[in-house]
């Protein structure tokens, strides 16, 4: 058994400790060690964005981050977006209302990337949205409804 590392990090606002092999990626840690399967594997080369997480405020591909690297960092995943059992995050709500998902495999990545965008730029233009989401591939929707949903969510969060 490869010698494991003890890592402490903050996941969706909660302190978590885990043991992982140095070669295990953050994606493996989230999915196989911690059981958080929201982040998906699409390519393992950082090209598809299905495993997007927010690491210290910036979007990262969990497949390109090693488990031990998240020591002391703040990680946000799709599982942390809805704050309680009755209310979704506006982005989640708008994705539903706009039918912005079909198979749904890329949805967690898009939601996380979109949240990172709105956290830093609350009033993005369509081009800014498309630019910010260019790292996330979707093969079902043609992006049309996704972009609409993100713009609408931004408007709602702005109270417009």
């Amino acid at each position: 058994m490869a010698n494991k590392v003890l890592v402490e990090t903050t996941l969706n606002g909660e302190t978590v400790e885990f043991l992982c092999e140095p070669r295990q990626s953050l994606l493996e840690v989230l999915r196989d060690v911690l059981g958080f399967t929201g982040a998906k594997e699409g390519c393992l080369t950082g090209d598809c964005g299905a495993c997007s997480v927010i690491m210290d405020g910036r979007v990262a591909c969990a497949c390109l981050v090693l488990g031990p690297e998240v020591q002391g960092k703040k990680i946000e995943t799709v599982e942390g977006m809805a704050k309680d059992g009755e209310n979704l995050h506006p982005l989640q709500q708008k994705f539903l209302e706009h039918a912005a998902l079909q198979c749904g495999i890329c949805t967690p990545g898009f939601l996380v990337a979109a949240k990172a965008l709105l956290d830093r730029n609350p009033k993005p233009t369509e081009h800014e949205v498309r630019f910010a989401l260019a790292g996330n591939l979707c093969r079902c929707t043609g992006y049309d409804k996704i972009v609409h949903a993100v713009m609408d969510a931004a408007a709602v969060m702005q109270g417009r």
Partner: protein
Amino acid sequence: MATQEAKFKVIGTRPIRHDGVDKVTGRARYGADINLPGLLHGKVLRSPHAHARIKSIDVSAAAALPGVKAVITSADFPKLKSGVVPLGELAMNPLYMSMNLLAHDKVLYDGHAVAAVAATSPHIAEEAVKLIKVEYEVLPHVQDVRSAMKEDAPILLPDVRTSGAPEKSDKQTNIASQVRFARGDLDVGFKAADIVVEREFNTAMVHQGYIEPHNAVAQYNADGQATIWTSTQGAFTARDQCGLVLGIPASSIKVVPAEIGGGFGGKIPIYLEPLALLLSKKSGKPVKLVMSRGEVLRATGPTPGSHIRVKMGANKAGKITAAQVWMAYEAGAFPGSPVGAGCMTILAPYDLENLQIDGFDVLVNKPKTAAYRAPGATNAAMGAETVIDELAEKLGIDPLEFRRINGAKEGTAQPAGPKYLRIGYLETVEAAKNSAHYKSPLPKVSGKLVGRGVASGFWFNAGFQSSATVNINTDGTANVVTGSPDIGGSRASCAMIAAEVLGLKAEEVHPVVADTESIGHTDMTGGSRVTFATGYAVYEAAQDAVNQLKQRAATLWKAKPEEVVFQDGVVSRTTNGQESMSLKELAGKLPRAGGPVGGRASVNPRGVGPAFATHVVDVAVDPETGKVDILRYTATQDVGKAVHPSYVEGQMQGAVAQGVGWALNEEYFYDEKGTLRNAGFLDYRVPTCLDLPMIETILIEVPNPGHPIGIRGVGEVPIVPPPAAIANAIYRAVGVRMTELPMSPPKVAKAVLEKK
């Protein structure tokens, strides 16, 4: 039969899909999310050669690695006889299936599976795979259809003989089959033409590009029963295929369909399931296999590249007088390209008296092709629709007007022969003509040349077998169970159909996609069939439930069932005393009225309604770099009856995006050794949201007379027109006719240069 004038209360609305919250919260369980106690992880060793004989395989070092629990090669498969067996509505050759799953004596393409390992961690399995020693004798390979058809071409499968050939021959060949459709008299037809256009086209092999890689988790039980969790388009199809290749009864396998992250036809065949099952049988533990993106591209089923020749003649009036097509499709390493569909679709939008279409299914050293959204139709349309555009241009007729003149309508004979029932092709042409897009002038883009193109597309759509049960809950709501994996929102459409029949809200019906033991046989999700055929079964099952509800009410009222009517969720009694009850009330009384109510239906519906689409696109071409930008895109389509318009639009927008990728960027690139060089999303470029504008959709509803609600399949046809439409737009922009897919910057730049 279709209730054309029917006023729908639920059908046509846009409720939030029932599986939505699970998918936006990350709770939805996809195949790769399945985890079981003691789970082992498997990896596959794949061929580095395009064509080679396997002389020996030595797995001893791999088996000896600590943590490795099982290693399998094709020797672990049962010996099978070659021959086609019917599989539901499909036909398969179990031997070829088995040879594709794990190479027997030869590897036939780069990435062909050779062995598989199960270990306690994916990393150990990876190490172990590298320790397997395989001795190859490399053989000459062939990857281009026309070279593969040559007499002296290297032969992939010695036992293949051309099926469908006019006369039987015993010659070894790579031509697996041949089809011809012919009618009228070509010579007469071309003589009658004032203008004839003939061109040759080459299109590249492309992949469906679903974001979720193939996966399978298998648990083999000591009593011979097995369970497989997998993301598949057909749980029953996967079960039957596994049964065939492993030589065990299909029913001893239970397939639990996980959520599926895209399929587009590519997740109908099996790749990992039998390997996981064998590894589990050997190790006694559950085994999980998940493909890397590289494996998905190298070793699953893309759609064929093709060589197509199209010759058409038309008279001054703009009427097509004759059309001749010759097309050869790459089958990949085993027979079975969609060339038949290509032949049947390529001229389908038009009313033709004199035509001949020849198609060839050709083996090449590339992965065995699989279905991809309207399989065979898109590259075919690239050929026909650009030639049509050239005819229209040369005759100085508006391309949409040209299609109006020649367009197929009810009663027109298809190229394959049968006459169309009510179809909406001309309506889509009209809609495109009257669209805000087509009426508006071309935008200007500084430094770039702009052009507008149009193209049409056709797809048959499928019927096939489906089962459904509809159960009434004690609070008067209902559940719908089907066996159709949901790849595009079909859970929502099935629930809405049941809600419509039962007079409930869409939210009051809970749809479930069940495993192969919990619902009757249901063919795969594909051919745009689910909302049509499974929806048909749901409709019938809901009617069955309604009839039982009437009987129950009749019992309560001591009336005859035929005296009871059910409408909008209310049962009422027509004779003596206008008694009536809401479904909610009746549901509460069922325990004392004969018990619960469950409706069921298993169907194989006929009356499939084909789909037509016409697209308009504006492009901007950079004459220096050859880069093509999509400025505006409008898709019109006959959708029969849109059950949930948002998801119909979604199907159209998604397909257009795939068509744009096919047109401009995507291609399988093999080097001289026959090795795939762009086996990742970095080099195999699928469109991102930066590559696309908003995609405007126009839904035309020409109800399908063969369906009680008028439903037609909508998912596939919208991928057909984009490449041709874009090629036509490029011509209008820079005056060159592109005849190769993808129309990537270098090719466009070269064409522009040659013209100068």
